């Protein structure tokens, strides 16, 4: 017996693709070498901000923002405590102010309602903000989630939709026999008519199973969380360069991110924080929200983010291999993840996706050149 589709990788994109395909009537197998959403999808900063999203992805992120906020409605009650709040991207120097103007302009053109405001105006929106801000980008429809809930949010809906969820079942390779894919897994072969690779930073290896050379860069993003403290901020905050993401959850903890790099790799995962980057990241945070100086840091951790050669997503058919698809590798991929999954599911089911995909032909051409 063969599944209609096998999806390898149970992160947010694999889960969303699986859910939408199952609801479209396909028999879906979703496999992961570990537990559901335990890698990047479960350990990222949960930022839903247009101001850290690449301009080309803004239309997607806006739709995904809506999906996250209404997740319980389309995910059988599963949710990630998504919160909508204003977002601020701030500039402390003239150079950053220029960067902010340029970036806000491009994002506004792409549909994000970002307006530039003075430091004083920004402090009215965010009273906890440093008084040293020169200029800020203000986006009224940013927000954040508790990313650690993502697996729990998707799991019941996947099972209700009839997805065969195989956690802790690593896939080692893929053969093609009689028009079908045969996935070689640690507990025996699994057959499917179609295959979707959704393996985050491990996509490079997965594409190799199908004879496709697709280089994927691995970012080792560090995150830091404080203990519960009194309310010190009420927006999702960043800096013009994009190297800070800051938010305070309802429980009082403050999450500090921004993509500062730690030590790790595909084989060993996120191994260790880099002391100087840990310090740089928290300095940037405390410079932005001075009240953070009084907090205590409880934990720092790492998550692996994938990036293609042009830092735009890899979403679409795999050239030269019928019925094989790929999804992943995008900056702020979590933000747009559920919508990307929905789009790919439309394509896999033979419909025209409601927004254009990001086929990898361009990346393969770059690699060949």
């Amino acid at each position, binding site marked *: 017996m063969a599944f209609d589709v096998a999806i390898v990788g149970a992160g947010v994109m694999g889960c969303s693709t699986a859910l939408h395909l199952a609801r479209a009537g396909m028999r879906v197998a979703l496999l992961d070498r570990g537990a559901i959403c335990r890698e990047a999808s479960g350990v990222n900063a949960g930022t839903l901000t247009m101001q850290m999203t690449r301009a080309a992805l803004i239309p997607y992120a806006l739709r995904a923002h809506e999906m996250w906020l209404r997740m319980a409605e389309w995910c059988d009650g599963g949710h990630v405590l998504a919160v909508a709040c204003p977002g601020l991207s701030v500039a402390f120097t003239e150079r950053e102010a220029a960067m902010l103007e340029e970036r806000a302009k491009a994002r506004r053109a792409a549909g994000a309602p970002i307006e530039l405001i003075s430091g004083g105006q920004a402090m009215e929106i965010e009273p906890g903000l440093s008084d040293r801000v020169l200029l800020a980008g203000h986006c009224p429809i940013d927000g954040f989630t508790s990313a650690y809930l993502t697996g729990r949010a998707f799991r019941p809906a996947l099972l209700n939709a009839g997805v065969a969820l195989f956690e802790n079942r690593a896939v080692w390779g893929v053969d093609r026999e009689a028009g079908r894919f045969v996935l070689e897994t640690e507990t025996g072969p699994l057959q499917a008519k179609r295959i979707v690779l959704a393996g985050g930073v491990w996509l490079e290896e997965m594409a190799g199973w199908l004879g496709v050379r697709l280089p994927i860069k691995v970012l080792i993003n560090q995150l830091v969380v404080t203990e519960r403290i009194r309310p010190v901020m009420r927006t999702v905050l960043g800096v013009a360069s994009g190297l800070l993401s800051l938010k305070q959850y309802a429980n009082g903890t403050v999450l500090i991110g921004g993509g500062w790099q730690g030590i790790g790799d595909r084989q060993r995962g996120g191994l260790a924080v880099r002391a100087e980057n840990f310090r740089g990241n*928290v*300095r940037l945070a405390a410079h932005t929200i001075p009240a953070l100086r009084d907090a205590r840091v409880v934990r720092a951790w790492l998550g692996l983010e994938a990036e293609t050669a042009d830092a735009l997503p890899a979403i679409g058919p795999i050239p030269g291999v019928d019925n094989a698809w790929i999804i992943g590798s995008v900056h702020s991929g979590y933000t747009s993840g559920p919508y990307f999954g929905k789009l790919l599911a439309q394509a896999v089911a033979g419909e025209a996706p409601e927004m254009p995909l990001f086929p990898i032909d361009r990346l393969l051409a770059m690699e060949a050149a």
Partner: protein
Amino acid sequence: MTHPYDVAVLGAGPAGMAAATEAARRGAKVVLLEESPAPGGQVYRAAPPGFVVPPDADRRAGDALRAALAASGAELRLGHRVWGLGGGPLVRQGEAPVPFRIDALPPDGEPVTLEARALVLCAGTHERIIPFPGWTLPGVIGLAAATILLKAQGVLPGRRVVVAGAGPLLYAVAAKLLKAGSEVAAIADLATRGEWARAMPALLARPDLLARGLAWRAALATNGVPVLQAHAVIAAEGVGAVERVRVQPISGGAAESFDCDALCIGHGLVPATEATRVFRAAHRYARESGGWVPVLDADRRVSVPLLYVAGDGGGVRGAAAAPAAGRLAALAALRDLGVLDGRAHARARRRPALEQWRAAQAGQAMARMMALRPALVDAIAPETVVCRCEGVTRAEIETALDDGATEMNQLKQFTRCGMGPCQGRLCGEAAAELVARRVGGRERAGFATGRLPLRPVPMEAVLGEFDYADIPVPAPAPL
């Protein structure tokens, strides 16, 4: 940053003091970091400056180790809270290991970073308390916490105290309470008489410990303290603080109630493995040694090069076995650093190896008595809070397991259990047992990934003084 030390030792309990002494005596450049204001550890704890506490056998044994340490030439950094560890194998793929890095907060608050070629971890244990109704009431404290109060500053946990749990610490705490002037309302010992009888042969090898244990028992009998064997605390009750404790035979039957203003309770000791988890060392689950322990060779080497564990942090064996283990670790470090050659090392390790083996026999018998008792976990009521930092009940944990959580890190994500300031040190044992029941054992349930900081660290200490321009902001992501 200064020139790297040859050996850094973390924790100045009996293992750490002996390790630092041994390494320094043999000419190595050694630093010993300790969180408390004085060396000694939990059992051999010294009184802080200005406090006079009458010496006992523990104090005298500790004084001997302290004197040797002071004469050894090892650099002693007291009041240093180590919050960061790095270096060693934690490098980019393909790069050679580097010296270990230690970030610490000294008493003056000015953060320091030290480097060492070899690292000896002597972090000891933390106490296991399996939750029961009322365990979070003020007045309920751990047995180990009670010993700190009594030993360091002669502070009484209460005027009328119930002492409960498992292991020799029960009787040690009760005897100290009596001596210090508390009334002991009752002792509720989980162990049966049979368990104590089975431990006797091992204890006979240590007549000094045995004699002291019997003296404790005699003092309790003289004072008419009810000693209830094979009894468990089923609830602590009171308004705003503990006022009475309900105790029941473990085989069931009528509960008895004891009025009190404090309950000192402990269900054994759990090796502190935060540091070895950070370094991704190999661990194994050893229930009778207290829980997850790093995999060690006979010379206390961890699976990570130039990293060693001595004392109860490598498996509970008691204070008496710790100094020999510390010396073995130090000697192995010196051998691996090339300070000692093979023959000199083989000669030097003979005595501590034998001493450690001897002392460990009695320690092992006591550790067995302090091992996790599954019945206590079975008895946790659905509405009882397991993770007190995050307020997660047993029922919420069970629901998360119903929803598909299969190991500790995932349970954390599903419930926030273990995400608070204690990072699972208090709730981890109970939570892991609940997971283990569903997935077929503690090995499968796993443990939370080791991450920094080792203890919550004030942001101010990490930040230091800085200008915005000093922040090395990397190149921004593409637009």
